């Protein structure tokens, strides 16, 4: 029995405005709202709304047999709430069908899984909370930003209670193994790994027109895979529908025809959380160094490969501890927005996918100016003369005092109650 699991990534970065060094210390607002809104409106019209309509129709016409999942970043949700709430509504409608699963991921689509374990956990929780609040169901499958994964990340994810992780097919870890089975974590057998079928996913995403792909042809390809291969994970950006492949290319019709041809060949469409419950892993997979789903090497070089990126990431995450001590709302929000992996991707010399800058250097300059202002604001909250540890101690004392007072207060009320009883 063949099972197909579709999942779509939805993420849009908050674009930074042109921020000169003379703005440092003067202008605490970093975003180019006009550009962000324009981009989001465009992708909403080209992709999100028509694609959601298509998925809804597929679910309806297949009597709920067609299923797929979505990884929507927290930043994307915020933008949709602000600029296109109708998309959120349409996701809610999809969610009600029961054929759709929302995946957990770090709220800010950040690289925190690699650079800051504490922050990673905080963001994943934040994101799951948000998804639960919107769609009423807490995610149980984990999808890291850009499918970044390593044994260590898997361990952290497992500790947070997630049952499975989606990762990409990379030659250096898979070797001869087929992606079309369930695998498990190197030393935590409870955590299951679902491997994205890299070739078939990209056939739809990037080679759709080139192949003159039809649903029938595609399903036949899947049918022709070696017997026994039971799960085909097809992951792609949601923009594949309508933006990367325009509506004229026939991409929406292709998707609409998929359930029919799939079911004709006795194939199932499944959700990751359901499928892993009834299927055992065939083998373990060990990933020593973090991998991603980008490029041929599937490593982190698109975000961390050069000196500029390293510097920016280091300067950002070294403030992590202090930011967590702050309770200034705008500051906390900026902290998330500045972590979005896109900012670092734009600093890549070789592969600045989706950049709005002329060069990696410009991306870096602008980001570092913003970051300089942000760091100043963080430092303004607590004087830099106090070391982090010392500050932590102080705050812990304050925190403990509160707990202490709470305990004492409880005791007091208890005693009062007892006394009252006695008196009575």
């Amino acid at each position, binding site marked *: 029995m063949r099972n197909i699991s579709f999942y779509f990534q939805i993420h849009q970065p908050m674009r930074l405005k042109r921020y000169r060094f*003379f703005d*440092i210390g003067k202008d605490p607002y970093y975003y180019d709202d006009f550009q962000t809104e324009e981009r989001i409106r465009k992708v909403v019209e080209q992709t999100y709304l028509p694609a959601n309509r298509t998925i809804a129709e597929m679910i309806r016409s297949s009597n709920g047999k067609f299923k797929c999942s979505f990884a929507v970043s927290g930043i994307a949700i915020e933008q949709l709430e602000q600029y296109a709430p109708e998309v959120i509504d349409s996701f809610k409608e999809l969610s009600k069908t029961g054929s759709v699963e929302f995946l957990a991921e770090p709220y800010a689509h950040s690289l925190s899984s690699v650079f800051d374990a504490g922050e990673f956990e905080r963001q994943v929780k934040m994101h799951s909370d948000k998804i639960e609040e919107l769609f009423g169901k807490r995610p149980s499958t984990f999808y890291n930003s850009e499918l970044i994964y390593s044994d260590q990340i898997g361990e952290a994810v497992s500790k947070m209670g997630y049952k499975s992780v989606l990762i990409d097919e990379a030659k250096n870890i898979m070797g001869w193994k087929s992606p079309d089975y369930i695998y498990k974590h190197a030393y935590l057998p409870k955590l299951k790994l679902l491997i994205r079928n890299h070739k078939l996913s990209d056939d739809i995403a990037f080679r759709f027109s080139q192949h003159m792909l039809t649903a029938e042809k595609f399903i036949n390809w899947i049918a022709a895979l070696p017997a026994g291969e039971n799960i085909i994970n097809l992951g792609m950006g949601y923009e594949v529908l309508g933006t990367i492949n325009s509506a004229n290319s026939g991409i929406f019709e292709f998707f609409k025809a998929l359930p029919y041809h799939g079911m004709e060949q006795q194939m199932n469409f499944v959700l990751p959380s359901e499928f892993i419950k009834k299927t055992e892993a065939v083998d373990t997979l060990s990933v020593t160094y973090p991998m991603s789903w980008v490029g041929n090497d599937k490593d982190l070089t698109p975000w961390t490969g050069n*000196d500029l990126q390293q510097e920016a990431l280091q300067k950002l995450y070294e403030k992590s501890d202090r930011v967590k001590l702050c309770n200034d709302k705008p500051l906390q929000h900026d902290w998330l927005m500045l972590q979005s992996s896109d900012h670092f991707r734009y600093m890549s010399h070789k592969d600045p996918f989706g950049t709005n800058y002329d060069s990696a*250097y410009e991306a870096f*300059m602008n980001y570092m100016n913003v970051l300089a202002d942000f760091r100043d604001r963080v430092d303004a909250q607590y004087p830099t003369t106090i070391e982090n540890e010392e500050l932590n101690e102080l705050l812990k004392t304050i925190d403990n005092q509160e707990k202490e007072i709470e305990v004492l207060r409880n005791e007091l009320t208890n005693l009062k109650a007892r006394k009252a009883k006695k008196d009575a």
Partner: protein
Amino acid sequence: MKALMFGWEFPPHILGGLGTASYGLTKGMSLQPDMQITFVIPKPHGDEDQSFLKIIGACNVPVVWKDNSWEHVSYRIGKTMHPDEYFWLRNGIKYDFHRIYTNDLGCIDFSGRYPDNLMEEISNYEAVASVLAHQLEFDIIHSHDWLTYPAGVFAKQISGKPLVIHVHATDFDRSRGQVNPIVYDIEKRGMDAADHIMTVSDLTRRTVIEKYHQHPDKVTTVHNAVEPLPDVDSFTKTARKDKIVTFLGRITMQKGPEYFVEAAHLVLQKTRGVRFVMAGSGDMMNAMIDLAAKRGISDRFHFTGFLKGRQVHEMLAESDVYIMPSVSEPFGISPLEAMQVGTPTIISKQSGCAEILTHAIKTDYWDIDAMADAIYSIVKNPAMYKSLRELGIEEVNNIKWYDAGLKVRAIYDSVIR
């Protein structure tokens, strides 16, 4: 393949970028095994490197027949030309050039510079070209810049060989649009007569097509390159407290020096640990000294006067940032030289070299905000400095004259047919 080239400058005695480019290009082309280059310049000094080409001084070519003894010729010009060659060239005199003032050898005294009677020198150069065209053997004529176009055109008319011209600059670059009609006329005639036109950048190519009305198919861009510095390791950077930001070049309208001063002013409002150096001389130098004083930054803004030879590279190597805010720069070789010694570079988008450089910051020449931002970023962010430095060296070392030479050769082959 024998090429007859007309140039105006050749190292070591050069006045601008033209000489450097002529040297690099011919040297790069000489690596092609079957390439023979004869390079004509108005006035050689005898210390030019002739290991890879043959240099003929126009001032040694007789245009009027005069009877002289071998010994006298040897005594007069033996330093730069063999007397036998003089006599052999003398046989090429087919026209009467008595109207031109000549010396005892029947040769014209060229200054080899850019004198007030430049137009006269240009037309005299044409006379020399006629003698060479009659006497030398060559497959193609290659003229470098407008001064030599008339010579190239005349040589083509005489020999019937194809002419390619190499546009290192146009008058639109030199004058910010206030074109001298006489110069324009010479340039236009040269381009019209040429079989093919090479430009040093796409920027110049567009000017040639739009302002000189040339057919796009006839114009090809051959970007300049840079000669590797043999003693690159001898240029070091002294550790000092203040960062140094340098402008280096002629202080003229074309180079946009005022934008540098304004950007410096912006940077200094935010940070003090930076010094600005304006190296070079030119007609706007005094105005710039005034401007720096008016902005109140003279304590951090320094002028060096004209630098030459080794001093140029020393100055570049000592700098933390090199900036070229040119309003219009057909190519601009100096950013490449700065990158060779590992200095991060900021260039205007209106410079031809911006088309081939990735690891340099590009801003509009008028955008002093962006320029100031880039300066600030490089001096404040070690990662930025390091990236631009290391990747810049790597990039510039891969821009080779040999490759430019191959492009030129392909154009030769296409016009010879």
